[in-house]
């Protein structure tokens, strides 16, 4: 009896120590991936916190391109040559298309920093994501998944978040074609493509994003933003609203989609 209780007591002590050191919520972040848009960054405490998990939800493949570009641009904005790890499954190329380096170069990012990892299934995707977040030195880790991700339950999410916190890796989860579910993410966003500012001769302009903050551990959620990417300044800025679009209040009531998940 005594033999088995001693390891048990040891385990309890370990759990107590782990709990004392705190989950992802108790330690505040030290640095942020800024978007370059002052009001946006200030509203979420400085930007996307480094060493935390951030989720980007998109309804389908079309908005998926916007969500992916937003995550990639925030990560590639950081100076230096630190690689950006992008994990996806092999069938992602058929669904949403292959990551196209000339397009990233056109957005002002450096495609040489990309390290693409393709896995056969989502189980392997999760295993590789766990390894990737535990490796220091990357600008960020983007994990792109399609549809429901039943393997990514609270336990798996917490394991990822703890790994990211220990090494200071920022984990950006791209959840395409998925409905927001409870998770340990620091921020959770809903990304939709927004109409761009038109150029001469009715040509489409710079990329525009509609972002809705569904959840933020550090404060109130529900804010909506419409941002443009300015590739010459390497920063996001306010989208110039064209006449057809209604201006959005900075803080609106919580979107039903967000309310369900928060």
């Amino acid at each position, binding site marked *: 009896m005594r033999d088995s209780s001693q390891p048990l007591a040891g385990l309890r002590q370990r759990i107590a120590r782990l709990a004392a050191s705190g989950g992802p919520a108790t330690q505040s972040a030290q640095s942020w991936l800024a978007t370059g848009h002052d009001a946006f960054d200030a509203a979420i405490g400085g930007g996307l916190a480094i060493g935390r998990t951030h989720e980007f939800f998109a309804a389908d*493949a*079309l*908005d998926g*391109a916007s969500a*992916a*570009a*937003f995550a*990639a*641009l925030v990560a590639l904005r950081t100076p230096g040559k*630190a*690689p950006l*790890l992008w994990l996806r499954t092999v069938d992602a190329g058929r669904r949403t*298309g*292959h*990551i*196209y*380096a*000339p*397009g*990233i*170069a*056109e*957005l*002002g990012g*450096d*495609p*040489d920093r*990309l*390290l*693409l*990892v*393709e896995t*056969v299934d989502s189980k*392997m995707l999760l295993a*590789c994501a766990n*390894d*990737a977040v535990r*490796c*220091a*030195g*990357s600008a960020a880790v983007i994990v792109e998944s399609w549809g429901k991700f039943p393997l990514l339950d609270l336990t798996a999410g917490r394991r990822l978040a703890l790994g990211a916190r220990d090494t200071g890796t920022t984990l950006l989860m791209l959840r395409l074609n998925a409905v927001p579910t409870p998770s340990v993410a620091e921020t959770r966003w809903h990304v*939709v*493509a*927004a*109409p*761009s500012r*038109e*150029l001469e*001769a*009715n*040509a*489409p302009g*710079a*990329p*525009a*994003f*509609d972002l809705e903050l569904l959840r933020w551990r550090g404060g109130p959620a529900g804010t909506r933003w419409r941002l443009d*990417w300015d*590739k*010459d300044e390497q920063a996001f800025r306010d989208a110039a609203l064209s006449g057809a679009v209604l201006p959005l209040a900075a803080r609106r009531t919580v979107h039903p989609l967000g309310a369900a998940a928060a």
Partner: protein
Amino acid sequence: MPLADARAQVPGLAIVPHDPVLDHGWLDRLAQGCARYTPLVALDAPDGLILDITGCTHLFEGEAGLIDDIDRRLTRLGMTLRHALGPTADAARALARYQTRPAPDEASAIRRLPVAALELEAEATTALVRAGLKTIGDLAARPMANIAARFGADAAMALRRLLGDAPSPLDPRVAPLPVATERRFAQPVASMPHATRILAELVSEAIIALAERGKGGRDFRATFFRSDGLARSIAVETGHPTRDAGLVMRLFAERMDGLRDPLDPGFGFDMMRLAVPRLEALATSQLKLEGGAVKDAATDELADRLATRLGRGRVRKLRPADTHIPEQAQLELPAIDAPPPTPWPAPEPGEPPLRPFYLFDPPQVIEVIAEVPDGPPHRFRWRRATHAIRRYEGPERIAAEWWRRRDNGGLTRDYYRVEDERGRRYWLFRHGLYDEKPDPRWYIHGLFA
């Protein structure tokens, strides 16, 4: 003859600058190829090869067969060949280079060679000729002491070597031995943990051998020989040369965990061998002192580990390719041996992105309604949804690469950048102009951010 005179005589003369380094490299490659005839191949720079074919000719049905084979292969490579066989390397070399008249046997052929075949300095050769000694035979008829006294010890030595009286050793080209360590067991090793420990020892021995040569390994290959005769090899690769035993063992552990049919010792392994077939120069460095490369090392190791687990082609880097066909403009190469980055085309300042973020390869067919046949699209249907186009820019006309294919390389594409009423941006193209094809189809090729 000066180049100007040569050009005056032959107007269309093709001129290539002399590159001794390239020539030597080519000779070395030929020597490598000649290793099929004999293991002893020596370079005779700048334009000769000496093969020691002692005991090798029966494989080619005699000397003639061997020479025929060499002749055929080298002629196919566009080389002009002069060859000769001799009792010693120097004799064969002199015969190949200086023989002008046929002779009944080797000894008389050597005696008929001109004295230039001794390859003495120009003054010595002239002195020999002036003394009336025109051939090797003339010289060999004199007492050696007189030759040495009058024309120098070098002339006497060269003559003796040519006649086979003095040794003329070859300096064969030797392929560098690969790094390999092995361990044989008196008692077969039947437990996998024990075998792994021995593998770790082999790896550290190989690492010491690598450090002595100033090299790092890119490829590590462990072979397990079972006592019942089966052998199994396991290989791991790294993206950069390494001498880190811990890293190599982690990769091996990763590989062994991922094996579909695990390594089975059966009745035990009676031998294990670790080879490092691929070496690259790796200077000793202290990462921490030479400024923050430690983190790079961490991500490199992650890439190696993921490539070991998923397969080398599943961890990739993107590199530009010099073409304007959109789907060929990027190369996805395995990160383990991707070439160093080359610059991507810089975007025009002030312009919106002209290339999509996601690219469909192959492009997906869509149904398009355009106001006029060769005008911009008005609305399109893709994946069972209709999108009305509010803004567009185009066409950007991308012609097929007519210089690559005989049928002019296919159809011209007219690309349009369009935005629908919900703000999604697409890259569409019409495959073919109306004068190329009666009813060209439309495709979606990419999604913009």
